[in-house]
């Protein structure tokens, strides 16, 4: 089974490093594209502004040339007709020209050509004004003489030359600006294209990384899922193993119980014969004894009939009845083992109080104080519980020291799902080497002043085990004994016991 976290951590770290780098590059490219776009847009805007200005200047130049032409045409008209209305365009253009030249000066500041243009126009306007004034004064010949000096015509040629030169300058500037704008646009497109390529490349890289990460994540998840399945399968296998073992143990236990039952049962038959024929023998001997007492039999025969045979019979009877009790005990144990336990809800307080009351009544002669502490309610077989506690409390009462008042304390506490009961007395105690022995069948501890078969505690332990609990003993000789009975509060899972 693989663990999930290191793999996924590695993936995440790799994704973080590579992903962050990719995202950083993408961001930088975008910023660069934006910055260059802004820069280019600014450049274009200023270029456009200059184009606007150039166009305006060209228009102004044309307007100035047109105004000067108007003046000349108007003067020629007047000179021919000497009619005042022909002078109107001259007057209008003459009035407009200074402002137009100022505007041109503003648009092309410090340009020497503008100054030359202005002086040429001034000279031309002055010549025109002179001829008009002379004509108005009736000196037509004088006016014509001025015209014929050719000064005006040459000035006009100068004006056209200068204006055309300025126009050509403006045209060149316009071409240059247009080229700049076009180049700027191309650069912008190039930058955008490069940026696009880079961003797309970064996106592709990030996408690939993401895809790999997602694939690895899915794999890790699948791994985790399969690990979980594996764990579940293991658990099921474990459950199955436990079930099989439990079944084996139960089967073995039932086998032993059946064995005990059959053995004790089969032992009983010959025992019935031994006891039966011993009784028959005893009856026969009675007849013999009567005769022996009446008749004058020889000494050894008398002795045999009156002493030896009855003595032998007494021993046989004592042994067979003991054997009978032992076999009965085994039978009882095996029968208890075969009994189906019920699940009764038992309020242990009243149950133990009742038992103690009955037993105290039986053991009235003794000076005994029994205290029962707070008790929980548990789920268990009533008969089994009564036998267990009855036996242990009865033992506590039986084995008190005869020369001092008896004190028996019954207490309980919870330990997780188990209820722990303690029966402590101040009796004669049990030697440490016998703590385990007392639970064995037919074994007893200490002096044998109190009659008993050595069955009770073996029976108790078998019952407690069947109830899913355990019983332990701690004791100090001459101080007292404490039995601890631990039982599941919720009862034992009912087991098949129809051996």
């Amino acid at each position, binding site marked *: 089974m693989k663990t999930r976290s290191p793999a996924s951590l590695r993936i995440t770290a790799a994704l973080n490093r590579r992903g962050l780098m990719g995202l950083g590059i993408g961001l930088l490219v975008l910023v660069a594209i934006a910055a260059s776009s802004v820069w280019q847009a600014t450049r274009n805007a200023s270029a456009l502004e200059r184009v606007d200005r150039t166009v305006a200047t060209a228009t102004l130049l044309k307007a100035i040339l047109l105004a000067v032409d108007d003046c000349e045409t108007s003067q020629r008209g007047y000179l021919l007709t000497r009619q005042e209305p022909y002078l109107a365009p001259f007057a209008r253009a003459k009035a407009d020209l200074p402002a137009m030249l100022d505007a041109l000066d503003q648009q092309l500041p410090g340009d020497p050509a503008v100054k030359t243009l202005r002086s040429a126009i001034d000279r031309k306007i002055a010549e025109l004004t002179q001829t008009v004034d002379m004509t108005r004064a009736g000196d037509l010949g004088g006016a014509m003489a001025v015209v014929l000096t050719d000064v005006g015509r040459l000035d006009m040629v100068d004006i056209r030359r200068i204006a055309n030169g300025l126009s050509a300058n403006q045209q060149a500037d316009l071409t240059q600006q247009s080229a700049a704008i076009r180049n700027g646009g191309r650069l912008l497109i190039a930058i955008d294209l490069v940026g696009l390529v880079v961003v797309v490349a970064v996106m592709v890289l990030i996408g690939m990384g993401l895809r790999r990460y997602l694939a690895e994540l899915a794999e890790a998840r699948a791994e985790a899922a399969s690990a979980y399945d594996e764990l579940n399968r293991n658990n099921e296998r474990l459950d199955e193993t436990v079930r099989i073992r439990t079944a084996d143990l139960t089967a073995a236990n039932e086998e032993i119980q059946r064995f005990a039952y059959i053995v004790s049962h089969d032992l009983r*038959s010959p025992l*019935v014969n031994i006891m039966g024929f011993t009784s*028959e023998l005893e009856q026969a001997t009675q007849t013999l004894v009567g005769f022996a007492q009446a008749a004058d039999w020889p000494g050894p025969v008398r002795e045999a009939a009156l002493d030896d045979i009855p003595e032998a019979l007494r021993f046989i009877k004592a042994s067979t009845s003991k054997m009978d009790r032992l076999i009965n005990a085994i039978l009882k144990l095996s029968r208890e083992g075969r009994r189906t336990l019920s699940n009764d809800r038992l309020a242990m307080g009243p149950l133990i109080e009742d038992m103690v009351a009955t037993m105290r009544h039986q053991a009235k002669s003794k000076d005994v104080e029994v205290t029962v502490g707070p008790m929980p309610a548990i789920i268990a077989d009533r008969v089994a519980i009564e036998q267990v506690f009855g036996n242990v409390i009865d033992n506590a009462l039986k084995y008190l020291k005869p020369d001092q008042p008896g004190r028996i304390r019954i207490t309980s506490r919870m330990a997780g799902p188990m209820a722990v009961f303690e029966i402590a007395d101040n009796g004669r105690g049990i030697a440490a080497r016998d703590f385990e022995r007392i639970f064995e069948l037919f074994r007893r501890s200490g002096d044998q002043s109190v009659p008993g078969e050595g069955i009770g505690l073996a029976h108790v332990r078998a019952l407690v085990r069947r109830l899913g609990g355990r019983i332990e003993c701690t004791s100090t000789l001459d101080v007292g004994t404490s039995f601890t009975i631990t039982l599941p509060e919720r009862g034992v899972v009912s087991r098949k016991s129809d051996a």
Partner: protein
Amino acid sequence: MNAHPVTILLIEDDPGHARLIEKNVRRAGVNNEIRLFADGTSAVTYLFGVDGDGRRIVQRPILVLLDLNLPDMSGIDVLARIKSDEMLRRAPVIVLTTTDDKVEIQRCYDLGCNVYITKPVEYESFAVAIRQLGLFISVMQVPDPA
């Protein structure tokens, strides 16, 4: 008493038990013939066997004292065969055994056993019980075979 004296069939594998039972039944004054069978097979052969003429050997009224723990078969099988036989089903069967299993006792009565007695372990009470059984048998009416 019956026109024909009742024969007591004692089916008991333990000869000691058989002897003690016989002794104590006799002490109660029962003088009927007691036939002892030490296993199930010989008892079944006697009960259901036929002679040369093809007739059942058993022609007289019988009373069966049956032990359940037989070496070759369960006494319950013998009981079941007697109680399902047209001719023998009215014959009283007294089960006398060491088994005191409740289920076993119920099964015996279900199969038609007339009396179920657990052999007391104490010999004195065993003897008394058998003697009383003897008294019981001596006054009991047993039907002739059909």
